[in-house]
């Protein structure tokens, strides 16, 4: 029997599904039409082209339609849709709805296909004679991406995963779906993972996806060049797009690491996690490809390498998507997606483009303009080629290790990645980085075709010596020399690349300004490496505690992420020494979903004098709907030359035995008399005015006694009396006031104790001893382990700003290069048009 469900909003989902199917159909039509347009020999017949363009535009509009419908569902909190229910909640601010949009895998594919649609439209207006073959490839990729969103069953297998799946159809089994009004029980969505509620999550995914999507453009040009036998021309056309893709992809990756640094708690900006590695595979090969494309343009060498690297880059984009979405990384990665049942579909996607690339390379092998002549040894083209090959090798190593789970799955083996994985990556990738940076340096002193060897050697060696001197100095000052020698070599290479490209930049500013782009980008890259090297290599755990606590023999040798004894526990209002800081946990404040912990830092010099004081508020994010424990978010004090990075690693757990977290504390405050269990056995002190009571954390002074005390709502009769004790509590250099009251009302004695929570005290005036002119003060102390505390970890990252500054400089370099290559393209096409006109 068909159930009629109440309260569902089915229209946006139905519309969305129609748009998804339309986008698929239009992309398919566009791809086929472009193919026929490209192979049509009748130059005057524009009908295929017209149809292809219209279909592509329909595809673009449908994708926008899908996006609008999905956003409409999220915006209106239609939790009958699985996507809205899984990733958003009513309390989520609108700007985070945007990141909810690409929270799921379906949203990721949508974003990807959207960017590809945009790029396609750019190509339609700009590609000219290249439009037909290039767009055939782009439209084909668009077809495959559209299938990822279909979510329909074809011959028993599910094709794609629809973002418009209803909650009751999503395979979740629950009895409420048997009721027509089930929706009235679903009050709110699961909410977004609090870690994603961060501004970086609004801009990082679109940037990364634009980067990944734009790799298709140079790929499509390479395929088109081979297919249409326009072997030489495609390279010039594709250079600006390859630059653009490398730029955006690089920026996207760096944004991801900034996000990790700012809001995740693994303590750094790069962890060699498989998902992170996967995002730089295509970047490495594309950068390599870009360099050999320029080599081919200037010298006619390295044609095959350029084509191969460009083709590989796109295949790696697809492989990246496969790795992070197929669930294959489950055992090695912390943040891979789980399998949505698209394993074989993702593999098919790779195979389609792999087979196409291989087939074209093989069938056109003999016709390719591969130079028969050998490059000169002292020529720029030869060493740029070597550099590109090393970039490829570096990528090969990353792919090889990251894919260990794939090898295990394919060959049925059970190999685990190297134990010290981070160290392994650092050393091997460091070796590649050294080679690449040195090449980035001296290749700039070489010219295309042939170079004056003596002059080259003199310049090279001068800079080598200078770089070596600086490396020794920097390595010694930062302590980098204590690490594996490879890192000193990387430092040397980077300093050398910086200096050599600095020289090129100075020359460029004097005249040949068009050369500035590459020099600036290389300088930025060198600075990035220096920054990453020093900050990650010589980062210091400020919160390291040694020896104290439960002793575990043989444990100090353990290393890696769980390095021993990196956490420090601090009680509220009890200052503790941490490195050169005196830190005090002052309290916490809640602004849902954040809970901030105020920690005061006093930086002390050798004599113990305070030289700097500041407040850091590391927080934890909670999401009750997701039922997970709070996620810590770091707080960082940024200096120009280093960062102090801190995050909370543990908090007291609220249990019946240990009710000292926020809520329990508040409850105890109200239930006045029921909080005895919170305190140690009270200690009575008999004191007169001016006397001092010493206790564990400081002392208490009885300042005065006063008769004019009022206790709320208790009127005093003529025979009644009330006495207040004005006490001053000094704990850890902080002063508090408290005035407990002793009252006789209707011949009964009442005491009104006062609490000083920040000092972990409760004070009561329990007896008046008129003969001795003394009173009895009862001191209740909170036992240490019931006092509020936090456990945190603090790291110092030296020179991390070099990494970010280098990134910005590299971006500038890329932009300069793109504008230069674009201008070149325009002048060459203008010259060509002119010569065509003259010939006619």
């Amino acid at each position, binding site marked *: 029997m068909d159930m009629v469900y109440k309260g569902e909003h089915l229209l946006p989902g139905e519309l969305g599904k129609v748009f998804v199917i339309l986008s698929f159909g239009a992309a398919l039509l566009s791809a086929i039409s472009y193919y026929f347009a490209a192979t049509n020999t009748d130059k005057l017949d524009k009908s295929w082209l017209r149809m292809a363009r219209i279909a592509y535009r329909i595809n673009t509009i449908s994708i926008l339609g899908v996006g609008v419908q999905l956003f409409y569902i999220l915006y209106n909190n239609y939790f009958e849709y699985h996507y809205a229910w899984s990733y958003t909640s009513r309390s989520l601010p609108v700007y985070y709805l945007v990141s909810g949009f690409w929270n799921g895998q379906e949203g990721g594919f949508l974003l990807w296909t959207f960017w590809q649609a945009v790029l396609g439209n750019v190509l339609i207006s700009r590609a000219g004679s290249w439009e037909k073959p290039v767009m055939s490839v782009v439209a084909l990729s668009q077809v495959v991406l559209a299938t990822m969103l279909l979510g329909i069953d074809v011959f028993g297998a599910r094709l794609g995963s629809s973002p418009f799946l209803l909650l009751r159809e999503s395979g979740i089994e629950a009895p*409420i779906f048997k009721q027509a009004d089930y929706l009235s029980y679903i009050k709110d969505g699961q909410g977004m993972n609090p870690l994603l509620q961060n501004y970086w999550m609004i801009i990082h995914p679109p940037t990364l996806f634009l980067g990944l999507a734009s790799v298709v453009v140079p790929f499509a040009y390479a395929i088109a060049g081979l297919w249409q036998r326009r072997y030489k021309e495609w390279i010039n056309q594709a250079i600006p797009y390859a630059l653009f893709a490398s730029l955006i992809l690089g920026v996207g990756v760096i944004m991801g690491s900034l996000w990790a640094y700012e809001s995740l708690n693994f303590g750094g900006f790069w962890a060699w996690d498989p998902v992170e590695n996967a995002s730089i595979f295509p970047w490495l090969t594309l950068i390599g490809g870009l360099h050999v494309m320029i080599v081919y343009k200037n010298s006619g060498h390295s044609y095959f390498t350029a084509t191969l690297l460009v083709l590989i880059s796109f295949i790696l984009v697809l492989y990246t998507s496969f790795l992070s979405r197929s669930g294959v990384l489950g055992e090695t990665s912390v943040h891979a997606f789980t399998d949505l049942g698209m394993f074989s579909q993702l593999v098919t996607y790779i195979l389609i483009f792999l087979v196409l690339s291989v087939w074209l390379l093989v069938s056109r092998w003999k016709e390719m303009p591969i130079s028969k002549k050998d490059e000169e040894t002292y020529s720029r083209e030869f060493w740029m080629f070597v550099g590109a090959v090393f970039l490829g090798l570096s990528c090969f*190593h990353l792919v090889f290790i990251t894919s260990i789970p794939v090898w295990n799955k394919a060959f049925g083996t059970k190999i685990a990645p190297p134990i010290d994985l981070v160290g392994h990556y650092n050393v091997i990738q460091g070796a590649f980085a050294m080679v690449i940076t040195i090449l980035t340096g001296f290749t700039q002193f070489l010219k295309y075709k042939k170079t004056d060897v003596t002059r080259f050697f003199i310049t090279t060696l001068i800079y080598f010596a200078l770089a070596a001197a600086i490396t020794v100095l920097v390595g010694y000052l930062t302590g980098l020399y204590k690490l594996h020698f490879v890192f000193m070599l990387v430092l040397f290479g980077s300093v050398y690349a910086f200096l050599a490209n600095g020289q090129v930049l100075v020359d460029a500013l004097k005249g040949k300004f068009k050369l500035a782009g590459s020099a600036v980008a290389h300088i930025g890259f060198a600075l990035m490496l220096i920054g990453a090297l020093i900050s990650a290599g010589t980062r210091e755990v400020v919160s390291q505690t040694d020896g104290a606590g439960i002793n575990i023999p043989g444990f100090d040798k353990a290393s890696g992420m769980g390095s021993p004894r990196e956490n420090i526990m601090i009680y509220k209002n009890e200052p503790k020494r941490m490195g050169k800081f005196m830190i005090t946990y002052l309290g916490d404040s809640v602004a849902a979903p954040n809970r901030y912990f105020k920690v005061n830092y006093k930086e002390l010099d050798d004599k113990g004098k305070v030289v700097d004081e500041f407040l850091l508020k590391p927080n934890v994010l909670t999401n009750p709907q997701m039922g997970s424990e709070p996620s810590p978010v770091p707080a960082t004090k940024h200096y120009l030359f280093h960062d102090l990075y801190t995050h909370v690693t543990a908090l007291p757990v609220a249990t019946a035995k240990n009710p000292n977290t926020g809520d329990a504390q508040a409850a105890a405050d109200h239930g006045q008399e029921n909080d005895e269990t919170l305190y140690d056995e009270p200690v009575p002190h008999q004191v007169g005015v001016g006397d001092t009571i010493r206790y564990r954390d400081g002392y208490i002074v009885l300042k005065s006694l006063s008769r004019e005390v009022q206790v709320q709502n208790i009127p005093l009769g003529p025979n009644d009396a009330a006495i207040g004790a004005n006490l001053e509590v000094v704990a850890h250099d902080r002063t508090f006031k408290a005035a407990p009251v002793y009252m006789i009302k209707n011949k009964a004695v009442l005491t009104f104790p006062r609490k000083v929570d920040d000092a972990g005290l409760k004070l009561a005036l329990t007896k008046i001893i008129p003969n001795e002119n003394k009173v009895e003060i009862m001191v209740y102390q909170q036992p240490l*382990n019931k006092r509020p505390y936090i456990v945190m970890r603090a790291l110092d990252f030296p020179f991390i700003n070099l990494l970010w500054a280098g990134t910005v400089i590299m971006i500038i370099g890329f932009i300069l290069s793109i504008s230069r290559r674009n201008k070149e393209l325009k002048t060459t096409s203008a010259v060509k048009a002119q010569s065509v006109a003259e010939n006619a």
Partner: protein
Amino acid sequence: MKKSSIVGLVVIAIAISVIIATYSKSSTYGSFSDARQTTEELRVVGQLDKAKELYYDATKDANYFSFFVKDNKGEECKVIFTGTKPQDFEKSEQIVLTGKMTGKEFHASYILMKCPSKYTKDKIEVTEAKAKTAEI
């Protein structure tokens, strides 16, 4: 011979050495009994024994966390980690420990958890929602 061919040969040599270096350094997923027979660090895959106590008391030592894990062969062992309790540790379905055996305890230097997949989680959450409807 062409220079690019020489470069090609060098590249192949490096690629092979990378593979060999990785293979010789790569470890295997083992069990606690494997760990007892070696002094090297290795990886153990297993499940958290949720019936036994997870011990972490920051007031005694902020860098000591102990728990019990049953490896894939069914053997159980006490594990000690010098750090804080990882977030949502109790919810883990599978744990990959990196470390070595010291005496009768396994000292982990690194813990990787596999948390329940989204779809199983969905199931739990909805049954909770159902419990609420029963009250009404």
